[in-house]
């Protein structure tokens, strides 16, 4: 494998201004995606508790939180891979032009998945089928979704692979996933996801299995390619600093409840929810002197518990926190669910 794949290719691409100074998407457009009161139950557990957020066309949104927060669950519900009757689902997911898809049958989802909504997974080496060549995996959707012929699909596949920075694309088509490095595999995943020009790209921790320098490459690639297609993107992330760099808006989740949501520059700069603040306090910057870790604990998913799920780990918890769930209300440029927010 040649080490120098993309140096020149990347440098010559003209970067959207967004990557340096961000551009705000045109205001006033209908949101591409609107999620309201989305609850998801699995058996006795309430995994998502009335999640609500919306996403503008061309914008990027970050779902933030620790493991068990329900971030990936939301992503899977948004692409119709978690549906009734496997799980209980209520609320609405409104995708522009399709209406509410929460109860859409498999047949309707088949027309959305890989066409209007696409997804990139956490570990590309596991998300590519080990038994099929790269070419087969990228050409199958091209032929099935776009109806391209064999040779047209091949040409398009090579273009796509080149656009995500894979050099030597024609010969990569006959390679198997394990023959590529982790970064290359993730590039292939991105190429497959973008092949049908989706409106919404879901990226579930796309870089957590990669080295930092490769992480920067991949995040930039995703941003560039979605902006170029004026597609929206939802990142599932655990790193708040990274989210501040690549997301317009963020949704902070704890135990399946939205605790704070709004523009990332407002929410992450001056968090008002104690949990957001605590998460931010765990991020190590190079001058971090003191860490103030949260006490250990994990949220309970029992559907009966009425209050804020963060209450038992929260230093600012009041008596009513455990008793009544705080509503998500607009406060100082963001939406917040807390009875005793930070000033």
């Amino acid at each position, binding site marked *: 494998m040649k080490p120098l794949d993309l140096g020149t290719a990347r440098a010559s691409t003209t970067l959207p201004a967004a990557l340096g100074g961000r551009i705000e998407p045109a205001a006033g457009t209908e949101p591409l995606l609107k999620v309201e009161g989305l609850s998801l139950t699995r058996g006795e557990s309430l995994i998502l508790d009335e999640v609500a957020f919306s996403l503008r066309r061309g914008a990027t949104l970050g779902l933030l939180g620790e493991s068990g927060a329900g971030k990936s669950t939301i992503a899977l519900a948004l692409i119709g891979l978690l549906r009734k009757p496997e799980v209980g689902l209520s609320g609405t997911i409104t995708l522009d032009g399709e209406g509410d898809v929460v109860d859409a049958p498999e047949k309707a989802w088949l027309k959305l998945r890989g066409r209007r909504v696409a997804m990139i997974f956490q570990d590309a080496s596991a998300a590519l089928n080990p038994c099929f060549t790269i070419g087969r995996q990228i050409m199958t959707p091209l032929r099935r979704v776009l109806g391209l012929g064999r040779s047209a699909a091949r040409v398009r596949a090579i273009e796509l692979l080149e656009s995500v920075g894979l050099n030597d694309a024609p010969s990569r088509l006959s390679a198997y996933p394990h023959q590529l490095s982790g970064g290359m595999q993730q590039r292939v995943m991105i190429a497959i996801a973008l092949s049908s020009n989706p409106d919404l790209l879901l990226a579930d921790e796309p870089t957590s299995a990669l080295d930092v320098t490769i992480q920067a490459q991949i995040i930039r690639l995703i941003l560039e390619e979605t902006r170029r297609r004026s597609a929206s993107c939802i990142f599932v992330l655990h790193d708040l600093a990274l989210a501040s760099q690549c997301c317009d808006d963020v949704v902070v989740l704890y135990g399946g409840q939205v605790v704070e949501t709004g523009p990332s520059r407002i929410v992450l700069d001056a968090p008002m929810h104690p949990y957001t603040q605590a998460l931010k306090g765990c991020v190590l910057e190079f001058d971090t002197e003191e860490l103030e*870790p949260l*006490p*250990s*604990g*994990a949220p309970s998913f029992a559907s009966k518990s009425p209050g804020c799920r963060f209450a038992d780990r929260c230093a600012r918890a009041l008596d009513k926190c455990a008793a009544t769930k705080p509503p998500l209300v607009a406060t100082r440029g963001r939406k917040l669910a807390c009875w005793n927010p930070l000033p």
Partner: protein
Amino acid sequence: MVDIPVDTRLAARRPTRLEGLRALARSNIYFAIASIVVALFILSATFAPLVSPHPPLDQDMAAFMSPPLTENHMLGTDSFGRDLLARTIYGARYALAIGFGAVLIGALGGLIVGVAAGLSGGVTEWALMRFIDALLALPSLIMAIAFISILGQGVDKVILAVGVALIGPFSRTVRADVLQVKAQAFVEAAGLMGVKRLAIIWRHILPNVIFPLAVQATIRVSYAVLVSSGLSFLGIGVAPPTPDWGLMIAEGRSFVSFAPWIAGVPGTALAILLIALSIVGDGVREHFDPKLRKQG
């Protein structure tokens, strides 16, 4: 003192093994039923003289080949007028004794060969590996047949032959377990601490090998019973007139067109025992092997 929040979250206390099995029986009704069936077989085999209506070799001159539900012979008699229920109850003795005995021999042999192959290196390992390969090259039944042809017939010989035939499969799994455990970080960590090699083997490797071996052994009991009754069925295992199920089925085969119960009674007993044993074995394995548990 370091000021760190004390992690007081209560993780579930690890249940003892017996409690684990009881929980298993409660959650899995098949396992519960199968355990009871196996227990019944073991009990009636142990107390055969008390349970059995007749001695197994007694011939009732008045009732040759009488069908089940005849007076005095609940499950009928065979061509010699021997009571089938009595013979089947005594037969359980042979089936279980051979099954457990053979598995014991196989597991012990497998443990020795497998641990030796897993821990040694170089030429020794290579030679042991080829030896295991050679043991595995013959299906257990055929290997047992070959041994029987050398040892001759008889219960003790069947136990030995089937047991030796099981050494191959056992040593393969033991060796695989040893290799897997040997590569674990805790073995390396003990080495770093300066713990001696023998102590590492004794304290860290063996406990992690013997436990899965015990699980394997419960699974293989039914296999051993199957192979040994197969031997008797072929007429080269236990010698007549021993009330062995395989022998009884073979005898009944000749009369299948007009007295199907002669093969049917011992055959059904054998089938029930084998099925129950394998449910118990599967249950134990699923319970103790976290990899399999989620497959349900």
